[in-house]
Each structure stands twice: as structure tokens, then as C-alpha cells.
């Protein structure tokens, strides 16, 4: 039997000190900007890690902005939908981003993340350079694959990914990465 949704528990959960920012909805440029300012304010006491959190948030938000498979229409403008949560524990900030993707992208994204996690920093920097060097006119020219490499470089931590099938056509894609706090 499905558990009844409790708004009270949802509210308590969001008020929990461990969740710094939680958003689900259309990822417009204005919303990205507003959330990014909010994040900058909330990580201000740890500038070095905070800047990493900010720049990784920007890459993850832009991934949703350009590539989410779920689209909503506002007037004559289409916006892609996704979710981003910034949470923390004593030692880490954690950014988790999720959105719907066409199933054809699942193996591509999976392999990409496996490759990224298998490389050391020097090899990752080389991969980033090579990926940028030869993707001039490809479909990913906005920089998607490179965005994930940059996320791994900036965080200097492995990225974890999860896929859940939604139906025959689509899957839910979630990516999570830690940023180690410098000041605790």
C-alpha cells in the first residue's frame, strides 16, 4: 500500500539543517541565477569549498537547462525540468542533480561516468582537453561531456550516478558528488 504523503514531514525534512537548498521544477536561466546567489550566501563561511560548490552547481544546472528530457511550456518559452539538492554533513557538501533522460543516453552517460571515475587527475585533465579539442560541431557542442569532467575535477571526488527506469522510453538520471569542506 502506498504511504500517504505527509506535508508535515516534508516540511520538517526541508527545514533540516542538513539540506541547504532543494529545488525541483523548470530550470530557467533566472531560476539558476537566483539559486546560485542563494548557494553563494549559504556557503560563504567556507570560501574555497563554497566556490567549488557554486561552480559545480552551475554546471549541473546547465546540464538540466540544456539536456533534461522533461520539458514544460510557459507561454512561448520551453523550459527543461530537473531537481537539484545541496546538502551537508560534518565533512562534506553534497550536490545531487536529477532529471529525466531518453533511454538512449543511459549507456552513454553510464560509460562516461565510469571512465571519469577510473582516471586519475592528470588523465582527467588530458581527457578534458581532448574532448574539447574535437567536439567543435558535434551535438554536444554546448559542452555537456566536458561539464561532467569539470565536475569531477572541481570536486576531486568520484561522481556517483543512478538510473531508474520510468517507462519504455525514459529513465530518471541522478548524479551526486561530494565537495570536501575546508573549514569545519
Amino acid at each position, binding site marked *: 500500500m502506498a504511504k500517504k504523503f505527509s506535508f508535515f514531514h516534508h516540511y520538517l525534512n526541508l527545514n533540516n539543517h542538513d539540506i541547504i537548498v532543494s529545488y525541483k521544477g523548470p530550470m530557467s*536561466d*533566472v531560476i539558476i*541565477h537566483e539559486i546560485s546567489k542563494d548557494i553563494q550566501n549559504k556557503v560563504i563561511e567556507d*570560501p*574555497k569549498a563554497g*566556490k*567549488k560548490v*557554486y*561552480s559545480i552547481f*552551475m*554546471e549541473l544546472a*546547465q546540464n538540466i537547462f540544456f539536456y533534461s528530457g522533461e520539458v514544460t511550456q510557459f507561454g512561448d518559452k520551453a523550459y527543461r525540468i530537473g531537481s537539484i539538492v545541496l546538502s551537508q554533513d560534518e565533512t562534506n557538501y553534497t550536490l545531487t542533480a536529477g532529471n529525466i533522460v531518453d533511454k538512449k543516453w543511459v549507456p552513454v552517460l553510464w560509460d562516461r561516468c565510469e571512465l571519469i571515475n577510473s582516471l586519475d587527475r592528470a588523465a582527467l*585533465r*588530458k581527457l*578534458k*582537453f581532448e574532448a*574539447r*579539442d574535437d567536439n567543435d560541431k558535434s551535438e554536444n557542442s*554546448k*559542452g555537456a561531456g*566536458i*561539464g561532467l569532467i*569539470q565536475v569531477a*575535477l*572541481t570536486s576531486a571526488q568520484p561522481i556517483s550516478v543512478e538510473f531508474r527506469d520510468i517507462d519504455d522510453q525514459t529513465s530518471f538520471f541522478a548524479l551526486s558528488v561530494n565537495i570536501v569542506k575546508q573549514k569545519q
Partner: protein
Amino acid sequence: MENLEIEGVKSTYFTPHVKLNAQTGECSITGESYLEDTWDFYRPILNWINQYCEEVKDPIKFTFNLTYYNTSSSKCFLDIVKLLKEYQDKGGEVEINWYHPEDDEDIMEEAEDYKNFIGIDINIISY
């Protein structure tokens, strides 16, 4: 040849301040770079550098001084550095300065990568 100057704007998107001087050869990109259409913004800059290298043919001193940029922008920086490398290979005099905030190793590494993978000298200066 005309100079090109673009005022930096910080709103929903961030436009860096761009100064390209055809008389002195001193060029700079300063601030933050995160644009709605990255290519639209950087294409005229690449065209200007191309024209300078073909028509003016004087020394060029290019300064990058950025505190934040997204990966799409860094692709364009790479293209600029490659153009400068081509100019240098053809005999042009090129100086590249890359400033980075002291505690931002990610911005520093970007320049190290251009330096190592393109094979051009870049002065990496922390402040």
C-alpha cells in the same frame, strides 16, 4: 584596424569585460564569463584576433583575468590560445598572461593545461 571593447555586465548571465587594442596589441578578458550564447559572444573576439594577426602583424599581449567561467567559456579561451599559438608559429610575437585568485587552483590548472597540451608559454600569475 578598429579596437574592440565590450563592457562587462553582471545580471542573469555574466559578460566579461573585453578590451582588444589594435594600436598597442594589448588585449584582455576580465571578470566572469557565463553567457546565454557563448559562441555569439566570443566569435567577434576570435575574428578580431584573426584580423589582427593577418593585417596588423604586431606583437600581441593577451591577458586573461577571470574569477569565474563555465565550461562553454573555457572552450572559447582554448580557441583563443590556439589562435595565438598559430600566430606565434608563423613568426608573430605573443605574450600570454593568465591571472588567477590565489586559492583557486581550478583556474590555475586550466592555464597549465593550455600550456602543456598546446605547447605555448603562458605566464601564470597568482594574486
